[in-house]
């Protein structure tokens, strides 16, 4: 009798352990961990397209932390002044910020930081523009008119960055939002003239689609597109186009020049952001 009790107790213990062991085999939920505090592509809905635009605009603030933004930020071109007689590098000898010395003496090495980071910062900005355009076009809640206006804003911004690439680099890849895998683009696919034409075409189209005044003043309007187009046309020596679009901006009387050249720097310092 006792042995029977013994065996049954032992069997009970053993069975309990085995049962719990088998229970564990259905642990799928345990393994489906998801990133916390972040969201995935599937969660980006229609409203988020506007937020993608905000981050594209944010590239104008020059904050790509760690990518040498002081010297080679997306809109930062002051170091190039050493290439002419505007400025000397100075500092403690040729090795201090040596890559700027390379720009100064015209002996730019392939690992020059300004060259590398400018490329990177501009393309990071272009990729934010392209992502925003794709997000806008895919949205189902935004009306078509609104879409063309928003896309025009992004195309203007993108045109600015490609223009920056055009005046710094001899050859670089050009791709718009329809290109799925930019890593496969070649730098020699288009000639400089072709790329300049793409830029101006984007700006002309944006000029058509953008409103004169934007409710959110941080956004680009028609005058921005026109002014940029005039600038690009100046670079490509298309004098007629320069005159046309520059006059459009000047004659609107929406803008005027600063009384002193330093004015455009002072204004930024006064406004806290």
């Amino acid at each position, binding site marked *: 009798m006792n042995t029977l009790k013994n065996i049954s107790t032992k069997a009970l213990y053993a069975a309990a352990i085995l049962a719990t062991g088998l229970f564990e085999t259905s*642990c799928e939920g345990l*393994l489906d961990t998801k990133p916390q505090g*972040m969201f995935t592509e599937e969660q980006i809905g229609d409203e988020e397209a506007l*937020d993608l635009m905000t981050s594209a605009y944010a590239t104008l*603030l020059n904050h790509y932390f760690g990518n040498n933004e002081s010297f080679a930020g997306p809109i930062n071109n002051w170091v190039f002044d050493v290439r002419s007689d505007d400025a000397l590098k100075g500092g403690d000898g*040729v090795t201090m910020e040596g890559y700027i010395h390379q720009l100064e003496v015209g002996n730019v090495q392939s690992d020059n930081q300004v060259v590398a980071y400018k490329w*990177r910062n501009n393309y990071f900005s272009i990729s934010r523009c392209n992502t925003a355009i794709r997000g806008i076009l895919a949205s189902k809640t935004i009306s078509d008119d609104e879409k063309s206006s928003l896309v025009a804003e992004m195309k203007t911004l993108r045109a600015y960055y490609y223009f920056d690439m055009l005046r710094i680099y001899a050859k670089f890849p050009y791709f718009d939002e329809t290109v799925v895998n930019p*890593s496969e683009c070649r730098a020699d696919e288009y000639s400089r003239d072709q790329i300049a034409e793409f830029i101006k075409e984007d700006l002309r189209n944006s000029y058509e689609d953008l409103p004169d005044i934007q409710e959110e003043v941080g956004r680009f309007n028609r005058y921005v597109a026109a002014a940029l187009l005039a600038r690009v046309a100046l670079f490509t020596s298309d004098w007629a186009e320069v005159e046309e679009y520059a006059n459009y901006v000047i004659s609107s009387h929406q803008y005027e020049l600063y009384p002193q050249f330093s004015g455009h720097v002072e204004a930024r310092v006064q406004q*806290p952001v």
Partner: protein
Amino acid sequence: MKKAIFSTVWLFAAIMAQAQHITVQGTVLSKTGGEPLVGATVICEAIQNGTTTDINGNFTFSVPEGAILKFSYIGFNSTEAKAAPEMTIRLEENSEVLDNVVVVGYQVVRKADLTGAVSVMDMKKPLSENSGNIMGSMAGRLPGVNVVPDAAPGGTGSIRIRGMSTANSSNDPLYIIDGVPTDNINCINPGDIESMQVLKDAASASIYGSRAANGVVIITTKQGKGDRMAVRVNYAASIQTIANRYDLLDANQWGEVYWTAARNSHLTPSHVLYGNGETPVLQQFAGGNPNFPTTNTDWQDEVYRTAMTNNLSASVSNSTEKGSVLFSLNYFNQDGNIEETFYERYSARVNSRYDLGKYVSVGENLMVAYWKNRGADVAGDRGIPFMAISQHPALPVRGLDGSWARPLELIASDVANPVQIIDNAKDNDYASWRMLGNAYLEVKPFNDLTIKTNIGIEHSQYFNHTLGRTVNPGDVNSVSDVYGQGDTWTWTNTANYSKSFARKHHLTALLGTEAIGYTFRDLSASREGYDFEDSDYMQIGAGTGTRTNGGGKTQWAVFSLFGKIDYNYADRYLASFTIRRDENSRFAKGYRAGVFPAFSLAWRPTQEAFFPQNDILSDLKIRYSWGENGNANIPSLYPAYSTYIFNTGNGAYDISGTNSSTTSGITLASTGNPELKWETTSQHNIGADIRLFRGALGVSVDYYIKKTRNMLTIPPALDVAGENASMWLNTGSMENKGWEVSISYISPEYGDFSWNGALNVSHYKNRLLALNSRQKFIGGDQRLIPGEPMGVYYGYVCDGIFQNDAEVAGHATQDGAAPGRLIYRDIDDNGVIDDNDRCIIGDPNPDLSMSLNLTFKYKGLALDMFFAGDFGFDIQNHMKRQLLSMSYGNLSTNRGVEILNAWTPTHTDTDIPALSLTDDNNESRFSTYYVEDGSYMKMKYLKLSYALPDTSSRK
């Protein structure tokens, strides 16, 4: 004729007598404990045959009457006896041979049965230093295990087993404490460790499958033992000092050197501390401020101190046939060598076990530790040691009124006053808790089967309160609090079946499941703007300025199934086969599972009947193993997902033109790879364990080849793909080959004197086989280059110093070349010194690692010494840039005394280039000038001890 018949009968009788066998029924027991010895060998030379004892220590053997039987068992002294129908043999334990069981993969196995490469840490040898962490004592003890301890108070360090298997993910081994896997072994009181094994080859480690690619360290904590209560008290105190300090210039020498350097650079010498005359004149006051008279400060002296460590342990343990319990307490207090740094820990442990009858037992191990510590920033240019070296000697620590000397104000130097930095941080409060424990239930439904369920938990939490006091006027002060909490639970179920058939066949089978879950949460807050800087006021809530907060959560989980079969035939042929299937939450569904098989074989020729019994070779085991392990320990916990965030940093823009706030935009935070899978390491190991001269000399040799494939790396993406476009990929492979030799010797007793020693020698060669399809190499000064060992140094070759203009002219075009400047070799012979003149200039992986442990005993005295060394590797001497050049970094920083030996046209017999304030020759570029041979050998400890005779201390 009569004689013939008589002799025939006699012969016949003799034959009959000889053919008269008796059946011996005997038992072999251990002399000390009386427990039966399973698998002890019984050999009868006369008939060239033998047998082994069964699970009860019994044997049956048919031998000629009166034959001599020899009994032997690993760890015991052999003995001989004459055959008799009933025999009980008691074997004496060979006390010099260490514990003969090891814990390997959910089982306890006899060392003799091991078919894999396992290093056992001798816990009876003195622990190397008064350290709160067992890692310090492991350094150099185990062949193939490289330990780099950390000297900071409470510092941890790292362990590398058999080279480095992987490039991007962690190279840390898996730690198992009492069956519970954990990430670090930091708070474990070394006095609580009963045994420690390191599983080095794939076959032993593969039972731990997915996280064992870098080896496994198994720690078992002490249980109550013996049959009476034991009380142990241990106190150790030690003192630490900085062994070597840098020899720096004093205030007067500095001025002279600076003046020479300025002239060499064609500049007019002038400095705020030394005036601007023909010769440097140390000004009376620093920066013209009468509150700060110039002096000669030894900054290293100000910052370092001699530090004391106290380690107090007490334990009570008891054990009976019903169960056992061990309770131990430990207080550890270590002051750091940098002022105000310390580590103080209280820990308690309760280990108990209770047998509910013969078939069920329960038990638990629990450790609770609480510690406070304060460290100092020691890394790089902004660390305390570097600040102490580079701070100008003429500056005082404080002004006459007691205020801090601020180098930024006084001499426009951005190297802060290190004593002020330490003082500002002296109220930082970092406190942590850690609880690590497990509870188990073990059932033996019938004799050969054991079923066990084990639940382990680990809870750790920390609260770090950091005060950011002002250094210079205009700074904003701040307080930052961070709270973090991590919880890990492990649930393991195993069934262990062990059976012997026909005396000679022993079979053990293991089947198990394991589930592990980990969650980490943290919360941080900081505020700026405190009117008072005393520690009672500086709490988060009191700040009046900008507020920031953050926090998040991460988790991962692992689920596994595993099985193992061991077969042992007459202790001669051993085989084992393991398989484990792991699913890791890091990878996406469909790629989660990894299957890791392994097998190992061993042969003990000395157990063969044909092997002659001799006094020289008493045991020989030859083993081979092959297995695969996995690794998924990358920093990212969700590498399969592409994630986005609302970016409040560089993705925020004032789109509404408010002039006071910004709107956050969406940016891509990381690109995911849903096809990411396991990194796998496969390893071949062949080895032999030899015991000679009745166990006095033991030799162990191993040779291994380890290959890692599908290495987890995160190669860079092209910039045109946008930001954060790079993702984790399985690319690349790595190979490690090496050998380990371990020799131990125990001398016979020469009267009252005896000695023993252990020598470990090991070598490994590491080679990166392939990287990825996009990069030819990764890194700058230290590189990962396919075909080379990991981390090779890459730079220019320095060929000495230009002695005159003719040498400069005759050399390739080098920007900045001049007499007194370093010569760089034109490697590609194109006449110009540029980037292409770099090559591999050093290898940080040692050619040979060695350690030697000697113990001499005379009566109660014992003298222990331990030497360890690594040979044939290069190290980078980055300090040379600061110490031997006037142009590196901030020009007002201090330099080494050796700089007085710099090259001048009249003093050319030196390696140090001429003094200069401008680095026109780019001499801070990485070259052989900064690479040195790092080979060393050091005596890690020398210990003299005396043990009181037994009777006086046993009450």
